[in-house]
C-alpha cells in the first residue's frame, strides 16, 4: 500500500536516533496530533468495512479480517467522545499490538489521517497536567512539542484496559 | 558420497544419528525397524549399515542375518548399536554377520569416529 511506503520513508528519515530517543508514529484526530510507540504498529490499512459485534459499545466499529485473523476495530474519535465524521480518503486503520492484563491483542484504531514519524528524547516528554476529574488521562503518556505544535503521546495499553473500553456493554 | 542405512525404532536416536552423519557428509537412508530397513536395502547398495538391536517387527540381529543373504550386502560393514553390555548380544550379532558394534550411549563424535574407522 502507498501508506506503508510512506511509513517506511518516514522512519528512514529519522534514523539518527539518540540514546534515549523513542520513535512515535503520529496521526491526526479532530485537528489534534497524537503519537503512538512505533514499535507497536503492526500495519496501517485503508478503512474498508467491518462486521458489527452485537451489543458492543458505539466506538467499537466491529471486527475485520486481517489475513485470517479476526481483529476488532475501534473508532478513536468515538472512543475519545469526539464528534463522529464520515470516513474520508485519508481515514486509516492503525493496527497496534496492545498488551494488558497479561494478554497481547491486536486492535485496529481508526484515525483521521497518518501524519509523521518523530524521534523524541525521553527527557523532552512532559507529563500530562492534572486535569481533575474532567478527563480521564490514564491513556496519555506525555506531551511534547514538535515545531510548536503539541503532540499527545498515547499509552496504548491503557487505551483499552477497562472492561467497558473494548468491553461488552451490558444490556440496557 | 558414502551412504549409510541407519535403522532405529526411536525417532530421537534416528534423528541424532542421521543429523550427525549428514553433517559429516554422508548420505543417510533412515529406517524404523528391520522390516523397513530390509525393504529399503533391497535393490540398492549402501556403504554401511548401522542398526539398533531391539526393535519391533524385526530386530537388528535378524536384519543383519537377512541382509547378509543379499548379494549386495555380503561384505558391507554392519554395526549394531547396543546398550547391552553383556557379550551375549554381541556374540549373537557376530554370528549373524555383524561387523562390529557401538555401545550406547555414544555421542556424535564417538559415532563419527567409529564410522570413519570402518568406511574411512
Amino acid at each position, binding site marked *: 500500500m502507498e501508506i506503508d511506503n510512506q511509513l517506511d520513508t518516514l522512519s528512514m528519515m529519522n534514523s539518527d536516533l539518540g540514546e534515549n530517543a523513542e520513535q512515535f508514529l503520529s496521526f491526526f484526530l479532530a485537528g489534534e496530533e497524537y503519537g503512538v510507540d512505533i514499535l507497536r504498529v503492526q500495519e496501517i490499512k485503508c478503512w474498508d468495512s467491518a462486521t458489527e459485534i452485537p451489543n458492543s459499545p458505539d466506538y467499537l466499529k466491529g471486527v475485520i479480517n486481517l489475513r485470517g485473523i*479476526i481483529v476488532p476495530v475501534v473508532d478513536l474519535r468515538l472512543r475519545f467522545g469526539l464528534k463522529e465524521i464520515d470516513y474520508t480518503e485519508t481515514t486509516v486503520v492503525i493496527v497496534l499490538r496492545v498488551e494488558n492484563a497479561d494478554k497481547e491483542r491486536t486492535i485496529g484504531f481508526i484515525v483521521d489521517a497518518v501524519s509523521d514519524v518523530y524521534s523524541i528524547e525521553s527527557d523532552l516528554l512532559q507529563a500530562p497536567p492534572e486535569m481533575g476529574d474532567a478527563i480521564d488521562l490514564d491513556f496519555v503518556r506525555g506531551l511534547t512539542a514538535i515545531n510548536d505544535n503539541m503532540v499527545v503521546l498515547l499509552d496504548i495499553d491503557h487505551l483499552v484496559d477497562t472492561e467497558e473500553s473494548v468491553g461488552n456493554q451490558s*444490556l440496557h | 558420497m558414502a551412504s549409510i542405512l541407519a535403522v532405529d525404532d526411536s525417532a530421537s536416536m534416528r534423528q541424532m544419528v542421521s*543429523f550427525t552423519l549428514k553433517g559429516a557428509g554422508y548420505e543417510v537412508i533412515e529406517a524404523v525397524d528391520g522390516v523397513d530397513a530390509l525393504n529399503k536395502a533391497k535393490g540398492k547398495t549402501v556403504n554401511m549399515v548401522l542398526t539398533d538391536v531391539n526393535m519391533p517387527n524385526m530386530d537388528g540381529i535378524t536384519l543383519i542375518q537377512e541382509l547378509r543373504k543379499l548379494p549386495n550386502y555380503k561384505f558391507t560393514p554392519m554395526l549394531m548399536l547396543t546398550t547391552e553390555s553383556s557379550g551375549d548380544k554381541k556374540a549373537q550379532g557376530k554370528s549373524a554377520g555383524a561387523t562390529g558394534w557401538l555401545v550406547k550411549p555414544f555421542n556424535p*563424535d564417538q559415532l563419527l569416529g567409529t564410522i570413519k574407522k570402518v568406511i574411512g
Partner: protein
Amino acid sequence: MSIDMSQFHQVFFEESFEGLDIMETGLMDLDLGAADTEEINTIFRAAHSIKGGAGTFGFTDVASFTHVMETLLDEMRDGTREVTRKAVDLLLVSVDCLREMLSAVDAEEEIDQDRTKKLQNDLETILAEGSEASENTAVVVESGTENVVSGGVWSISFRPHSHLFKTGNDPVRMFRELELLGELTSKVETSKIPPFSEFDPEESYLSWEISLKSDCSEAEIQEIFEWVDEDCDLKIIQAAADKNEEPPQSLVVEASKAEVVTKAVVEKVPAIKKKTAKNTGNESSSIRVGTDKIDALINMVGELVITQSMLSQMSENFKIEDIERLKDGIDQLERNTREMQENVMQIRMLPISFSFNRFPRLVRDLASTLGKNIELKMSGEQTELDKTVMEKIGDPLVHLVRNSLDHGIEMPDVRKAAGKPEIGILQLNAFHEGGNIVIEIIDDGAGLNKERILSKARENGLIGENEVLPDEKIHELIFAPGFSTAAVVSDVSGRGVGMDVVMRNIRDLGGVVEIKSEEGVGSTFTIRLPLTLAILDGQLIRVGEHVYIIPLISIIESLQIELENCNKVAGKAELYKLRDEYISVMRLHELFNVIPNSTQLDNGLLVVAESEGQKVGLFVDDLMAQQQVVIKSLETNYQKVDGISGATILGDGTVAMILDLPGLAALSRKKQKTKPRILEEAVA
C-alpha cells in the same frame, strides 16, 4: 564437530512419553504367571529405548533409573523371573515415577530424588531376591588387565579366518588404526593362498606378523581387534617389555572419579524438590503425524500447483471461447482446496485411544481402592477426533468414569445379593455418527436413584417442593452445580463439585451429554462431540444487512411463520405453536439490536433449533447458503460476546459471527426481565 544435542530433546521426550504409555498398557495386560513373551518384549523395548535415549542425551538419572527397570524386564523376558503381581505393581509405579522424572527434566526442574532413590532401591531389592541372574550393575566393567608399558614393542600375530570378509571387516581398517598407535612394520604371509583354480575371492587367505612400537596398552590393541576376536587367531605379545611397577593409572583415575561422584551426591541432597512452576497451561503444542498423511498432503499440493499453473496460463491469453475450460479449472481448484482442507484437518485427528489409554490403569487402581471387582471393556479406540477436542475431553471423561465406578457399580456383596455377577462391567465405547464423535460410558451398576436425586435437589432448592419432573429431567439434575448424592463423601468422587463442571466442559466443546439410567440395571452416559473445533457445518442466515451462522447440527427445521400459530404470554414472551408443542421465539434483531428487513413475523422465517435439550425458534429475515466454515476465536483479540461462539471468514473475505444458541437463550431471558424495548418499526 559439535552438535547441539538439545535439538533432539523434544522428540526424545515425546517418544518417551509414548513409550511409557506402551509400558503401562503392556504391564496392565500382562497375565500374571503366564505372561506372553512378545508382550514383555514390547514393554522391554520401550524401556530400552528410553534408557538408550536418556543416556545419549545426557539424562543420566533417567538412564540409570530405567536401567534397573529394564534389567527386571529383561529377566522376565528371558523367563528367568516370574511375572509376579508385586513386580508388575512396582513396575507400574516406576512408570509413573519415570513419567514424572521426564516431565521434570523436560521442564528443567529438579527431579524428586527421594522418591526416585526409594523406588530404585525397591526395584533393586526385587532384583536381588530370587533370580539367579542378578549381576545387575549398570556400567560396562572396563577390562581390568591393564599393564601400562612405556616404550614397548608389541608383536602381533594376526591370522584371520577365511570368512573374515563376510563379517564386513577389512584388515586394512585394523592396520590403519594400529598405525595411529605407533610405528608399524608388518610381514605378510601368503602361504595359504591356494592355486588360482581354487582361489575364492570372497575368502581371506592372508595373515600378518606385525610389529608395533608403541606406548600403548595391550587393551588398546585388543580393542582394535575386538570386533574380529572370534574371526581370527590373534596373539599379542610384548616383545621388549619394561614392566611398570606403579599401580595401573586407570585405576587411579577411577578412584578419583568415584570421589567426585560422592561429592556430587552430597551436594545434591540439600536441594530438595522444588516443584513450583508446573507447566500446566502449556498443552503440548506439537503433534506427531504419520508420514502417509503428509504424503497425501504433498500430493495434493502438487495437484494444486498444477491447477494454478493451468489457470495462470489460461489468463495469459484469454479468449471468450475458453470460458468452459476456465470453469473446469475453477471447479478443479475448488476440489483441490476442499481436499486439502480435509487433509490438513486429518492431520489434527488422533485416535481416541490416546485418551482411553489411561483408563485400564485408572479402573484397576480405583477398583482396588474401592474394594470392587470391575472389568473394563473398551471399543472403538481407533475412532479419530481432533487433538484439541481430545485434550479437553480427557478430564470430563475421567470424571464420568470415576463417577460410574464410585457411585454406579455396587460393592461385590451388594451385587451378589441383587442376583448380579460380582464383577461389575464398565464399558467405554467410541464411534462416529454423522459429523460427531459419540462416547458412551456404560455401567451395569445400581443406576441413578431418582428418589435420592429428587430429595437432594429439593433440599438444595434446585427444584420446587412439589415439582414433578420426567425421568430424564431428574437425571439431568446431577449436572446441576453443587449437587452430590454420595452417601459418604469419598476420596474418589462425591465432593459435590465436578458433574456440573463436566457438563460445562462438554458444552464448551460444543457437545451434549445424555443420561439413560434404570434403577438396578445401570446407567449410560452418552457424550456427543463435534469431531473438530476448527470447522463447522453452518447455515448462513440474514437479518437486515447482517449475516450470521447457525451450526447446522442444532437446526431441526426452518419454516414460514403462520401468524395464527403465534401467541404472546403476558404481552412479551412470544411462543409459536409448532404442531403440538409451544416453542419460544427469539427475535435475533432484538437480541442483537440490529435493523431487520421486517419485524413482521410472517415476513420472515423461523429457524427451529435445539438448545440445551429444548427447542427454540429463531426469527430471521432469510436463509442463505449452507457451508463449512472455519471457526476463529473472537477472544484472541477481543473477548467473549454473549450469544456469539466465534467468527468466521466468508468467501468474500468479510467476517461473520457464529451464533451460540444457549448463549442467545440466556440473552433472551435477560432481555425479558428488563422492560421490553421499543422497536424501530420495520424499515422494509
